[in-house]
């Protein structure tokens, strides 16, 4: 980078900061028109940009800012009074300047647009002529806004703004920063809580005089902390330090092990010191990534002002707790959901002034935006004193939009009704406006927040207002996670979405994994919990293999708007993990949120709970959700279905065993079968399990040469159905294990001893085994008991 480029770069960064400040100052000035200090600050900022742009030869930028400066000087000298239209005009100037700075950054010149109209309007205003709204390039007027492409709370697009596309920008809260390096602010001493973001009224240091070492130049940072208290740090360097700190933790763990091995006293004290230093370092580095939420909040007054004008409403926004800090990655991700909620509050929440007056309210609506730390989390509230959510209307809309069955909706509790607004496709807006009402949004808000490991709550009272409360963790870089195992690998499940852990002994009939419409469910306190088998989703095992495991560990998770059970092989411990991004080639898999390194140095994948639910197509179908959240008694029909394990016995006979009785399927080598007291046994875990041949248990119906036994060699492996019987297990050797089916039991009379009855399954006559009888007949258990 040449020296000139570097100077231009600095100019861009500083001007960007100045513009963000200008936005806020102009709004503040509107409230306190007489405040000469604010006016002087605005004037100086515009003056500085004008001067520097002239120096660099950005003549178009200079023309616009010069016109603005003229108007401002008249205002400052009291020759003109500030009108709302003049404020709007000045705000459009800020937008145009911002756009030009963006162009300078991208192309090195100040663009093709002349912006003569704006300059003219500014000049006319400076001459004291009345401002015509049509020529004032008003940021948002309804008719301009209609032509604007939809901009839901999704990702902020990088718009290449021109003066006329202001509405787009407002819909997206703010354009991306033109500032080159995205950096975080660093506290000089860990002991001092980062001195970024001093209260805005505190030290109105003149912008022009502020040197370039100022902290937090990221977009919207309202920083007027003394210049030498902070430094700019490249985020890449910061991330590198986080990595190194993580590595240090691993090394420390190794030293600890070594010390335990050697038992050396000196090493012990050194290792303890190392431990402390490592912890401190890690904490300090995490703190360096923290930024005040004001980076987001500072955009809100301007946004609300423009929106309120567009909706012809009077709205005042109050902001509290803007110095609340959270991780920089979260600041970026929380911006969209908050912007969307705020937009909703202005558009849907606050009523038009006349309606408010009719209801005896102050014509000016009030929105309170508040942030605070609470229990290791950041809680952000957006509350309005508007109309509140009409739950009856929500119910009707949800039914008419086919999101919920009418019968179900009529039985919904208040909380359930409120949560309907988070269903995809839900909208109560009477008319689609540019602001909201497209039915895209609340579900996106919820999903985005959940992706951050957070939650959204709603409180509403008809006629009194609505409060949205978002809770997110302080940082994404370190998070508590539950370590689970599936197959040969371990995985980390973010603790934020974990509700409880359940261990199911499949052998016990009361605790069964059942199927409803073919989907596996578990009956958890009279609710049916849909199950997602991790190994099945990751394609490391089939569902049937899962189904036949003796024990299932279910992590009950809540994400993507619904509760589901994640079935894993093992649950180990809870740990604080350091989240690291995945290689680009793996990001498209969407079931992993990242990876982490465990204490033993191995890499462990972090599961993306929302992605996993989507992959299992759980989170998409709202109708199905209703079916699943229905109480269990409404599923009598499914109740009657029984899962049976289909087997092929001797002579190709079809046999079935209730799946509930099957502990697992086992295929030991034939040579593993041992003899004990004249019986065949197999070591099964800690047990000695008797093994019986099904062929030997059932009396033959007719004599027939046994081709299958005579002609074929004895198989290398046995197919054992391990059945629980009286607290122990017995292995029944069968020819083949065919399938698991769900059927309604409808038996015809018994065909032979050892069989409960026959029925037709898959078009074949199938005998249902009388397991207890068969086991008793074999005498295997009693023989074993005698032998042992």
């Amino acid at each position, binding site marked *: 980078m040449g020296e000139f480029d570097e100077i231009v770069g600095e100019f861009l960064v500083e001007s960007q900061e100045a513009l963000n400040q200008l936005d806020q100052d102009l709004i503040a000035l509107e409230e306190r028109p007489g405040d000469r200090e604010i006016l002087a600050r605005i004037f100086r900022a515009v003056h500085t940009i004008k001067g520097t742009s002239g120096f660099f030869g950005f003549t178009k930028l200079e023309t616009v800012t010069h016109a603005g400066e003229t108007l401002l000087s008249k205002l400052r000298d009291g020759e003109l009074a500030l009108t709302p239209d003049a404020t709007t005009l000045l705000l459009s100037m800020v937008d145009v300047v911002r756009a030009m700075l963006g162009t300078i950054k991208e192309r090195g010149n100040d663009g093709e647009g002349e912006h003569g109209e704006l300059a003219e309007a500014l000049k006319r205003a400076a001459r004291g002529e009345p401002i015509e709204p049509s020529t004032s390039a008003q940021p948002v007027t309804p008719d301009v806004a209609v032509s604007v492409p939809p901009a839901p709370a999704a990702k902020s697009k990088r718009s290449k703004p021109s003066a006329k596309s202001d509405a787009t920008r407002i819909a997206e809260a703010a354009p991306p920063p033109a500032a080159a390096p995205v950096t975080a602010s660093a506290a000089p001493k860990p002991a001092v809580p980062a001195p970024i973001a001093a209260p805005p009224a505190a030290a109105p240091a003149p912008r022009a005089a502020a040197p370039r070492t100022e902290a937090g130049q990221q977009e919207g940072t309202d920083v007027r902390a003394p210049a030498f208290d902070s430094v700019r740090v490249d985020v890449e360097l910061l991330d590198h330090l986080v990595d*190194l700190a993580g590595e240090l933790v691993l090394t420390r763990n190794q030293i600890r092990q070594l010390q335990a091995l050697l038992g050396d006293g000196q090493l012990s004290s050194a290792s303890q010191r190392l431990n402390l230093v490592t912890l401190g370092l890690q904490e300090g580095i995490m703190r360096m990534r923290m930024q005040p939420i004001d980076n987001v909040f500072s955009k809100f007054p301007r946004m609300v002002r423009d929106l309120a004008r567009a909706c012809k409403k009077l709205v005042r926004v109050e902001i509290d707790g803007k110095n609340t800090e959270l991780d920089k990655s979260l600041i970026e991700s929380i911006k969209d959901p908050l912007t969307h909620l705020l937009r909703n509050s202005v558009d849907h929440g606050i009523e038009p002034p006349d309606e408010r007056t009719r209801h005896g309210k102050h014509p000016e609506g009030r929105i309170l935006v508040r942030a605070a730390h609470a229990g290791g989390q950041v809680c952000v509230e957006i509350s309005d004193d508007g109309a509140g959510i009409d739950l009856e209307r929500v119910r009707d809309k949800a039914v008419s939009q086919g999101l919920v069955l009418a019968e179900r909706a009529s039985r919904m509790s208040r909380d359930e009704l409120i949560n309907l607004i988070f269903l995809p496709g839900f909208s109560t807006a009477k008319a689609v406006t540019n602001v909201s009402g497209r039915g895209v949004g609340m579900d996106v808000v919820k999903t985005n927040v959940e992706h951050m490991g957070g939650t959204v709550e709603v409180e509403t009272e008809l006629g009194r207002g609505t409060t949205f409360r978002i809770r997110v963790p302080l940082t994404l870089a370190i998070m508590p996670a539950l370590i689970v195992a599936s197959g040969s*690998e371990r995985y980390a499940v973010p603790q934020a979405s974990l509700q409880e852990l359940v261990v199911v002994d499949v052998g016990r009939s009361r605790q069964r994994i059942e199927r409803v419409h073919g989907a596996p469910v578990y009956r958890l306190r009279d609710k049916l919990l849909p199950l997602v088998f991790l190994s099945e989703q*990751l394609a490391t095992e089939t569902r049937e293999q899962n189904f036949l495991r003796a024990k299932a560990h279910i992590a009950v998770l809540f994400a993507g708007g619904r509760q589901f059970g994640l079935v894993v092989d093992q649950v180990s411990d809870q740990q604080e993990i350091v989240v690291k991004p995945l290689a680009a080639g793996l990001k498209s898999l969407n079931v992993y949120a990242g990876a982490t390194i465990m204490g033993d140095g*191995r890499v462990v994948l972090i599961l993306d709970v929302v992605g996993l639910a989507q992959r299992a197509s759980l989170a998409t179908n709202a109708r199905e959700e209703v079916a699943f959240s229905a109480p269990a008694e409404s599923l009598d029909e499914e109740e009657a279905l029984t899962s049976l394990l289909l087997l092929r016995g001797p002579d190709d006979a079809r046999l079935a065993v209730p799946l509930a009785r099957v502990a697992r399927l086992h295929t030991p080598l034939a040579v593993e079968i041992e003899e004990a007291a004249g019986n065949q046994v197999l070591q099964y875990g800690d047990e000695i399990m008797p093994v019986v041949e099904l062929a030997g248990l059932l009396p033959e119906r007719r004599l027939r040469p046994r081709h299958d036994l005579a002609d074929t060699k004895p198989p290398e492996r046995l197919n054992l159905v391990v059945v629980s019987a009286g607290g122990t297990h017995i292995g029944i050797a069968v020819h083949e294990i065919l399938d698991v089916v769900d059927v309604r039991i409808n038996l015809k009379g018994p065909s032979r001893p050892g069989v409960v009855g026959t029925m037709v399954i898959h078009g074949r006559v199938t005998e249902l085994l009388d397991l207890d009888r068969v086991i008793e007949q074999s005498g295997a258990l009693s023989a074993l008991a005698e032998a042992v």
Partner: protein
Amino acid sequence: MTEQYCTFELDGLYLGLEARKVQEVLRYQPVTGVPLAPFPVRGLMNMRGQIVLVIDLRRRLDLPEAPEHVRPVNVLVRGGDGLASLLVDRVGDVLELAPEAFEPVPDTLSGTARSLLRGAYQLPDRLLLELDAEQAIAL
């Protein structure tokens, strides 16, 4: 201008990568499998605190799996998307080669292998195939 090449063997083939793309060579490390990942991905490994994607170059080139006794070696390659590791059978010398010796990919090679190769160098005793590092680690 000669270019330095880091050479290695893979299923009897003699392959080379531009040495400036290679960060280091590491003996085989345990990997964590990534279910659902594309077939050539063997998993993720921890390289001094950095998580690195490990790609089995045999699989990437549609070559047969390595025999049991072969302990593959990690060749860490810097690409556009960061660091990735290519598993190869054995690492050879670093060679300095002049562009005059460069030839197009021999016609005898086909399939995936061909698309990941840039060309070949005829050495006195054997043929060195130049692997396109960026392509090889892109999935």
